[in-house]
């Protein structure tokens, strides 16, 4: 992509809150340089101007939760040279993937006065369940430094540096005192992917798991510690059933805790890397 012509960038939205694509606008100091390096061809949050595809790089936010979106994502894939999914919705189905655990229409009935006007699929699934994805960026929302890393890596034609290890390692790197050990605060950091810079623990709040599971994580052992510390199984289940409920590493653990009240009946030990 090192031609004299600037490569084109398109940003697409599916079932999501817009928070991840707004992370791009949040790169205030780098935005002009980015506009100089790439031609922003399609980005509804920024401009009504639209340039027709194909596009060199597409950033896709949101999960696939309606029949129309299941079609539209194929169009986006066809018109994109490189397709990068950004955020928990696009990479794992998002918080709306909680519907995957409920009966047809249960959530829609609870939220909308007339659910019969809403046309949705019974599941909320990641983009990768529908089309090939070239790169995934995790987080709810994504971290803007990681977004810049992914974009600059694309421009340089190199692989982005995105850690797959735990939030704990970022805690230790910045010298944050461990909350569960020193205060008994519940924390999902030991099973959660680094990327946020250990933001929540640094302000005294346990990790919510909003970057999804780290590679090789052992949610059963952590659930055991949560229950030992006095948390009820139903609360531990809820802790795993949030932004990454659609990822089986967290979702299966949430289900197991809810159904059996036991920390670790599901054998996820040594999940292949």
């Amino acid at each position, binding site marked *: 992509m090192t031609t004299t012509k600037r490569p084109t960038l398109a940003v697409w939205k599916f079932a999501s809150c817009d928070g991840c694509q707004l992370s791009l606008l949040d790169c205030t100091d780098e935005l002009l340089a980015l506009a*100089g390096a790439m031609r922003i061809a399609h980005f509804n949050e920024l401009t009504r101007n639209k340039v027709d595809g194909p596009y060199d790089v597409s950033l896709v936010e949101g999960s696939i939760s309606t029949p129309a979106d299941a079609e539209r994502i194929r169009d986006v894939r066809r018109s994109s040279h490189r397709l990068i999914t950004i955020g928990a919705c696009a990479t794992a189905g998002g918080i709306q993937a909680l519907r995957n655990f409920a009966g047809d229409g249960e959530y829609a009935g609870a939220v909308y006065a007339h659910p019969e006007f809403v046309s949705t699929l019974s599941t909320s699934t990641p983009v990768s369940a529908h089309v090939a994805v070239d790169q995934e960026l995790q987080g709810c929302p994504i971290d803007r430094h990681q977004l810049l890393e992914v974009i600059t890596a694309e421009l340089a034609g190199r692989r982005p540096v995105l850690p797959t290890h*735990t939030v*704990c390692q970022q805690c*230790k790197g*910045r010298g944050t*005192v*461990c909350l*569960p*050990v020193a205060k008994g605060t519940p924390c999902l950091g030991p099973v959660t992917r680094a990327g946020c810079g250990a933001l929540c623990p640094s302000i005294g709040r346990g990790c919510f798991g909003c970057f999804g599971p780290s*590679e090789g994580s052992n949610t059963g052992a952590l659930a055991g510690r949560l229950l030992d510390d006095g948390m009820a199984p139903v609360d531990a289940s809820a802790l795993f059933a949030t932004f990454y409920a659609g990822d089986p590493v967290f979702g299966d653990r949430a289900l197991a805790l809810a159904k059996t009240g036991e920390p670790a009946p599901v054998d996820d030990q040594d999940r292949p890397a």
Partner: protein
Amino acid sequence: MSVDDGAVFDSGGLDQLIGVLRSAGYRTIGPIVSDGAIVYGTVTGVNDLPVGWRDHQEPGRYRLEQVSDAHLFDWAVGPSTWKSEFFTAEETVWQASIADGQVTFSEPDDDTGPVAVIGARPCELSALAALDRVLQGGAHPDDRYAVRRSGTFVVAVECGAPAGTCFCSSMGTGPAARAGFDLALTELFDGGHRFQVQVGSAAGAGVLAQVPHRSAGDGDRVARQETLARAEARMGRRLDTDDLPDLLARNLDHPRWEEVAERCLSCGNCTLVCPTCFCSDVKDATDLAGTVERQRRWASCFDVEHSLLHGGPVRPTTASRYRQWLTHKLSTWWDQFGESGCVGCGRCITWCPVGIDLTEEAAAIRTSAGALGSVGSVGRRTS
């Protein structure tokens, strides 16, 4: 020079000592209370130290409590290590930029001035010596480490109150300070709050000369010996090191590795709080302005990516990663560096979120190894 244990001063003397070091241009780093733990930070005098604080440590649990006395060092090591002062968690190795077809390289200035370490415990002196051997003792020293480490002034404090997770006496590193300090203090309480001072270097003698003190008497020496004996008796854990490196090397396929893997989170906390773990990862970054930066960050053998080669990770399972950690600390470190990689500080036990205890894991392998004999031995050099 031979150690001289002849001086005594009180906490006013310690305050002056810190002042003398600061006027001499040292950054004085020592223990402070922050976020519910005793960590290392800037100290400007004794009032910054953990006055009256006590710690309670057990596997996966750490709590502080403040009582109404003036004891300054009546606690054991917390989550901070001196390692992070010299072998920083993140650093830039070099930068390069391109202008007019010309590539320019630059290196950051790592010289942040000499550090005076206030209150290094005996196990930490051994840990610093081990780290020195690894990072600057070989044919290819780490220049950035060497710059930060040069001219360090070490004020050690011997241990009177080991924690429930401490086992330095098993590792031969404490509770008495033997080497690696400029001055070593022992905090004494019976017969008046005071510090007995040992001098370990000419620099130490020079600094002590600027601080009012009196000569130590027999009473001070006896009080010090009693303090150290009490500390030995209070040691929370022990590790049987007899034949340990070979014992572990003979048991690489022991079922205990699978068993501990069911409890282990593979989170890496143990490696990052360990004062001797030295692994790091080097990555290149680019930005939109055309600058390239090579960065180094702490890494852990609990990362799947740590052993990633073409075709996949060498250690794909938690069992294989835990085994790497424990055998490196207690067995293969001997092959590499001729000593133990563990100094018995207990940090990895306290700060493991699920309280996995390496002394217990090693003991479990020892207990059942006899029955297994040398089954599964795949040779010694596996790290």
